[in-house]
């Protein structure tokens, strides 16, 4: 029997999105193959972090904001630290800069490994979840778990503990690791690099839906290195700005169906942040083994298929392991683990690349070092509108599919972005209307 597209209205509801961080839902209304409504509903309660920060000393900001997310606390620490250092005019020596990159690599490894193997792979292999998948692909799951553990361990060595690390601070680190401590990581990182190359080769065997969008990719771009902590904010549509100009170009909007604000580019609309954006705009800065493996696997840029984000994550796993090894091998401890930051009145903004995409922080400080105002724009709130746009574009081609398959494909499309709903709901704008 040929599938027929009914003209009746169909409503697809996923009341609790599985395999995403935090609490969200999906609501779609179709009439025939026409999409009438798409809402990525984020109902996790708002968490008001920007308000918590007001009145606190700037040295507390990295540890407070790290609490926003258990998966990417390093990103929060890094964006907070860089923004505050810019407000205070602090610059750090090269060894500290390298340690920050190493710290960030640990987070990328653990976050990407979790998503690639445990959250996204089941979509491609046709399993309900990683548990079902593990019964038939034990080696794959074991590989992912070991990669994640290596990332977590790197974060713990650098940050004092795996979750909500405590070592990074404005000016550097409270404690710098010894050369011996970092060299001890080398065998694991060597294994992880090989495992990451294997991961990319495995992603080349997966089947990808033929779906492309004309995205505006937004990410950092640094002249000499694949971006983590520094660079200008660029896009493939001409955006090229310093972090201090972020709020002139990107605005956040409140929508009724979400406790997270939705970010859009002024007068242009939705945009994509994250691994696929970074790989597209920084492919030339990936290390040689990553570029070579990409060529062998037939992956090239521009890549506008969001389902291929899993390949972008695999490429970034290769980068993060390669970069961590480079830093570990060359490491010479800094003379002092941190430079002192003297309080002064000022305003500073910074963007760093969280595993899921750019994370913007901006702080205004009083002369005594207290935080007067804070603004945080996490990656998931930036991708939220783009996810809805993807679904709107994808759905007409799926309208004839049976309901379960349609729902599954939509969920997979959401998971392309590895949304972190806990991060996205850090803030709620309250609007009171009066007669």
């Amino acid at each position, binding site marked *: 029997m040929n599938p027929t597209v009914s003209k009746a209205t169909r409503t697809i509801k996923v009341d609790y999105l599985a395999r*995403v961080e935090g609490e969200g839902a999906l609501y779609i209304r179709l009439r025939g193959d026409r999409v009438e409504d798409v809402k990525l509903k984020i109902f996790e309660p708002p968490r008001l972090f920007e308000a918590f920060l007001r009145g606190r000393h700037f040295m507390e900001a990295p540890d407070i904001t790290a609490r926003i997310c258990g998966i990417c606390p390093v990103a929060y620490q890094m964006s907070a630290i860089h923004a505050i250092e810019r407000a205070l005019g602090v610059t750090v020596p090269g060894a500290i800069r390298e340690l920050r990159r190493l710290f960030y690599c640990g987070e990328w490894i653990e976050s990407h490994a979790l998503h690639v193997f445990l959250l996204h792979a089941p979509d491609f292999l046709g399993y309900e979840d990683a*548990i079902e998948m593990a019964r038939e692909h034990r080696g794959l799951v074991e590989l992912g778990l070991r990669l994640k553990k290596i990332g977590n361990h790197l974060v713990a060595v650098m940050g004092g503990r795996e979750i909500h690390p405590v070592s990074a601070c404005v000016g550097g680190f409270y404690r710098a690791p010894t050369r011996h401590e970092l060299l001890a990581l080398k065998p694991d990182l060597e294994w992880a690099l090989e495992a990451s190359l294997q991961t990319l080769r495995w992603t080349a065997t997966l089947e990808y839906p033929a779906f492309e969008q004309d995205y505006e990719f937004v990410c950092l771009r640094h002249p000499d290195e694949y971006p983590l902590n520094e660079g200008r904010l660029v896009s493939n549509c001409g955006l090229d700005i310093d972090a201090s100009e972020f709020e002139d170009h990107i605005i956040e909007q409140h929508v009724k169906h979400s406790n997270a604000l939705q970010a859009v580019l002024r007068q242009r609309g939705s945009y994509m942040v994250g691994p696929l954006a970074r790989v597209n705009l920084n492919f030339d800065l990936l290390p040689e083994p990553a570029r070579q493996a990409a060529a062998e696997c037939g992956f090239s840029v521009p890549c506008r298929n969001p389902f291929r984000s899993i390949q972008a994550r695999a490429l970034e796993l290769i980068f993060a392991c390669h970069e961590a090894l480079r830093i570990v091998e060359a490491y010479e401890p800094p003379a002092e683990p941190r430079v002192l930051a003297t309080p002064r009145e000022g305003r500073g903004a910074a963007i760093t690349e969280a595993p899921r995409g750019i994370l913007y922080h901006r702080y205004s400080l009083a002369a005594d070092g207290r935080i007067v105002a804070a603004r945080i724009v996490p990656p998931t709130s930036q991708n939220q509108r783009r996810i809805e746009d993807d679904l709107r574009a994808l759905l007409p081609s799926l309208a004839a599919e049976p309901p379960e398959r349609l729902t599954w494909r939509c969920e997979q499309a959401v998971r392309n972005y590895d949304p972190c709903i806990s991060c996205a709901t850090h803030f709620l704008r309250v609007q009171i209307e009066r007669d």
Partner: protein
Amino acid sequence: MLVIGVGHPDCGDDAAGCLVARRLRELGLRAIELSGEATTLMNAWEGEQEVIVVDATLTGATPGTIQIWDAAAAPLRRESLRCSTHGMGVAEAVELARALGRLPAHFRIYGIEGRKFEPGQTPSPEVTAAIEEAARRILEESGKCTSQD
């Protein structure tokens, strides 16, 4: 025996697991607190023979009810432990470990039924009472397992 208290200490009744772990540490047991992210849990119980996980539940039972699952004996119904805001939580960690042959031989889950999970809240009186009761029962169990050891 290792006791793992799971939850968020500052989200009302979600603190139940952490508070049981704290109480048991005071009483001399080996007990740790974790947020409930699946891979961290699996790493924590790696190599252990006997594990008790304590977590808040939302099953529709009366708040403060303590339910015990023998996870080593039978698969968990995942809807029983849906309090985690993580992509993969306690139930997923247990079942993934089972699928990979990494589940400790003796594995029980103590679920304490909660009713309020909002950030910044203290646990409800029903759950506060249940925390003490769960700690007492686990202490009793630990006595048994010590004699078996």
